[in-house]
């Protein structure tokens, strides 16, 4: 019999409604899985057993009371720990927020609770979402369930690992430069960065406000669509949230790609990309072509500068966003002889090295005399990236590329080389700069048995066509492998 922890969200929802099992059963399956896998993975910072059990019981009552068609009712979900949860410790993997219990729920969290979702716990991340491996966590790294000697990607590595391992049925992360898509790629899951503004950022601990976007991680394209629909839509508490109608996604997943024009991004199809990843990407494109799509090659010339621009814009914004951690109102306090000393000592002790590096970079980039050469220039590149995408979308419906230049890399391999680490996001960053949606779908395993992700990008609010293409990619790839660790019976030293 199938372990309930391995069901898709859609199947689990059907089972709950058919009375085959209860939400408490479902949660227990995920908790049993966590009990086995967590000692190897460390996907979670906090498992909220009591809160989750209460929510599962409430879901069972709602199910027993009659028809309740909320798609996430009773579904165990993992949340990245930069999503603010009322009463549940939220640290963004930083020492500076150790022990902080928020007095409020972020909008996405509130919508999940309203949707009847069962929040299993808070997952590990690179501190303040700054990193691509989940090694920059003040509470220790997360490992990849496909090979625990490798990283799960990052910064949403905790949520990706939990979903891949089956200690949650779905998860949420945040994507500032690839932080949902790259870990999804490295863990064989589906990860989505929606259009900027589609999901409220209220209650997401800010890294880089103009780039951050909350999005889902699921085991299938359909699960990811269901998760996204539960949180998307205008929020009066986020001035940058989109006021119009949410794109209809899950209704048209079976629409196919016949007649669609698909652009393969030239700049992301060669140099710097692992040959096996390139090969899997080519094979996927061929299958899309076989399925009726018109495939063309498209150049995005500014892609070359996107990474550099990103590493000025994101640090600049973070230098201001993280200024609030000053020991005055909450979080860590290291005493000093005067207020400046208190603030400086607290920040020196509370932030990890990567966070400090980015705050310094950003502060420098915004300084008088340097602003134009750095931040100003980066903003001009951002405009070029937008223009490149806009021009491309005049000719094609979606763009495709690898999600990550490589599969999962060994723990520690890039930890001391920031530039090598930054390069992990070369394929994903352009979509953050343009604010447009992009997602990663697993398509194959490499020779080492590690998953390879395929990226589908679409114009703003083009989630419908993006998911339709992703669903076709998923069907054609026939990717059904599960992480070796995704079992409730693993007993290993």
């Amino acid at each position, binding site marked *: 019999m199938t372990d309930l922890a391995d069901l898709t969200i859609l199947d689990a929802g059907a089972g709950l409604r058919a009375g085959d099992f209860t939400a408490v059963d479902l949660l227990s399956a995920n908790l049993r899985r966590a009990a086995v896998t967590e000692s190897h993975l460390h996907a979670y910072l906090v498992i909220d057993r009591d809160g989750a059990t209460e929510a599962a019981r409430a879901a069972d009552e709602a199910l027993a009371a009659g028809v309740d068609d909320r798609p996430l009712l009773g579904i165990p979900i993992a949340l990245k720990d930069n999503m*603010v949860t009322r009463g549940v410790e939220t640290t963004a993997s930083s020492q500076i927020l150790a022990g902080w219990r928020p007095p409020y729920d972020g909008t996405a969290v509130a919508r999940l609770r309203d949707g009847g979702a069962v929040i299993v716990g808070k997952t590990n991340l690179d501190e303040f979402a700054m990193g691509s491996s989940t090694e920059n966590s003040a509470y220790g790294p997360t490992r990849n369930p496909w090979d625990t000697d490798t990283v799960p990607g990052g910064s949403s590595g905790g949520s990706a690992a939990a979903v891949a391992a089956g200690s949650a049925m779905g998860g949420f992360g945040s994507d500032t430069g690839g932080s949902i898509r790259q870990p999804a790629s490295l863990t064989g899951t589906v990860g989505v960065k929606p259009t900027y503004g589609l999901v409220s950022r209220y209650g997401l601990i*800010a890294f880089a*406000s103009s780039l951050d976007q909350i999005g889902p991680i699921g085991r299938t394209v359909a699960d990811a669509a269901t998760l996204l629909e539960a949180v998307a839509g205008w929020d*009066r508490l986020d001035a940058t949230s989109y006021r119009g109608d949410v794109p209809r996604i899950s209704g048209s997943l079976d629409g196919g790609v016949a007649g669609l024009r698909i652009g393969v991004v030239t700049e992301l199809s060669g140099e710097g990309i692992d040959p096996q990843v390139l090969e899997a990407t080519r094979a996927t494109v061929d299958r899309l072509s076989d399925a009726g799509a018109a495939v063309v090659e498209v150049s995005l010339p500014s892609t070359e500068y996107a990474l550099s621009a990103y590493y000025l814009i994101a640090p600049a914004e973070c230098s201001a966003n993280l200024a*609030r951690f000053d020991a005055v*109102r909450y979080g860590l306090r290291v005493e000093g002889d005067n207020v400046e000393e208190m603030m400086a000592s607290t920040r020196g002790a509370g932030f990890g090295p990567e966070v400090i590096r980015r705050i310094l970079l950003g502060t420098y980039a915004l300084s008088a005399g340097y602003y134009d050469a750095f931040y100003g220039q980066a903003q001009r590149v951002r405009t070029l990236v937008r223009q490149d995408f806009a021009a491309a979308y005049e000719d094609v419906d979606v763009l495709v590329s690898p999600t990550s230049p490589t599969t999962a890399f060994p723990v520690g391999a890039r930890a001391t080389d920031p530039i090598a680490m930054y390069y992990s996001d070369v394929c994903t960053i352009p979509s953050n700069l343009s604010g447009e949606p992009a997602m990663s779908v697993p398509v194959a395993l490499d020779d080492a048995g590690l998953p390879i992700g395929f990226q589908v990008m679409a114009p703003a609010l083009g989630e419908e066509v993006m998911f339709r293409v992703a669903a076709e990619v998923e069907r054609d790839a026939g990717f059904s492998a599960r992480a070796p660790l995704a079992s409730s019976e693993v007993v290993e030293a």
Partner: protein
Amino acid sequence: MTTWEAVIGIETHVELQTASKMFCGCPVDFGDEPNTAVCPVCLALPGALPVANEAAIEGILSIGDALNCTLTETSLFYRKNYFYPDLPKNYQISQYTFPLCVDGHMDIDVDGEAVRIGITRVHMEEDTGKSLHAGASGRIHGADSTLLDFNRAGVPLVEVVSEPDIRSAAEARAYGTELQHIVRALGVSDAKLEEGSMRFDANVSIRPAGSDTLGTRTEVKNVNSLRSLQQAIDFETQRQIEVLDGGGTVSQETRHWNEGSGVTTLMRSKEESEDYRYFQEPDLLPLFIDKEWRERVHARRPELPADKRARFIELGADAETAALLVDAADLAGLYEGAVEGGADPRTIGNWVTGEVVAYLRRNETTIDATGLGAPDLVELAAMTGDGSLSATAAKEVLARVLAGEGTPGAVAERRDLLQISDAGEIERAVDAVLAENDDAVDKIRAGDMKPVGFLVGQVMKATGGKADPKIVQELVRSKVDQ
């Protein structure tokens, strides 16, 4: 010796009294217990985001409109970065390029002459919390401890920046006063300097009179009243003159006005000044102020102080009365009501700016709390006009009406203050006095007019002071001549 001329620009901060704060739903209420009007947004909890308050935008647009500014079609918010414990985010959301209002002007009256002061910009920002430093110094360095109250954090704050068009401390005071009156007339703020809802910083430099170059300026902070604005600028101007006359140079710096000792002292030099690292606020979209909105704001513009003053002068008030009334809406209403009711403007002006103001000050009360209304003033003026009340008696009646004793007629009656204007009654009294004073009558008839006053006095005494002295005098003269 060189003759120096001061060049002064003023930055004014005004807190808007909107229902809620600039970027969250917390109430703007200064009476609350510390840290009760707060939420995740104004406390800058992790994850919280700002949303701009439309009523505050409307408020600043009305100020810009009243200052004859161009209202910017696309306006941007910026982050101004600096660390201070009462600034929760450690950046202030403010404006930098593309502020909401630019290129305006205000006319002020200096010794009867209109002087035009340019307004560079009017922009929107948010206030900080309040620090209470315990311990000797009263400032953060050297304090034993500091308490923070974030109720004020995030209150909408408007900054009005003038051009360096002001040439004296007195002009600066006139500018500050007029701006205060305008803001109050718009109803967007009570603009109380003593409570900090209006605050000034003055940029002061000097140059040889007639020169068109600019000298090195200093910025004077901590100016908490219109009087100290004038004093601080006077001091700073004189200080700079002494420095330059003594062969020294003025350095660009920020100086602190010390109210007690009446001097400015160095706060920080240019080298110590902060780099605010302004960048566009990514949490807020650009503000689009469409033509319709700009026109709506302009159409709603109330009567401004300058227009009101002109109207009062047209009604017959003198310049001083008009100036006083412009800043006191309740008194102005009283004045207007009485004058429109037909009373003599000068008489009403004298009463309102004299007895009424004195009474209100003495009793620390407002006009609403007294028994006085415009119809009472009309009645009182009519009684003095027809001679039934003397000027002195009128003041007493006014005081009693203010105290709530009743209408002027009723008070005068009850207090027996009405003048005898019945000619017959006065005539009988005159006849009696003349009959008893033959000597005086004879002297007058002989051409010595001195005893007239004596006889009038006797009649007044006989009538208990209630006879109209004019009528008495006329009667005495005519009867002696007979």
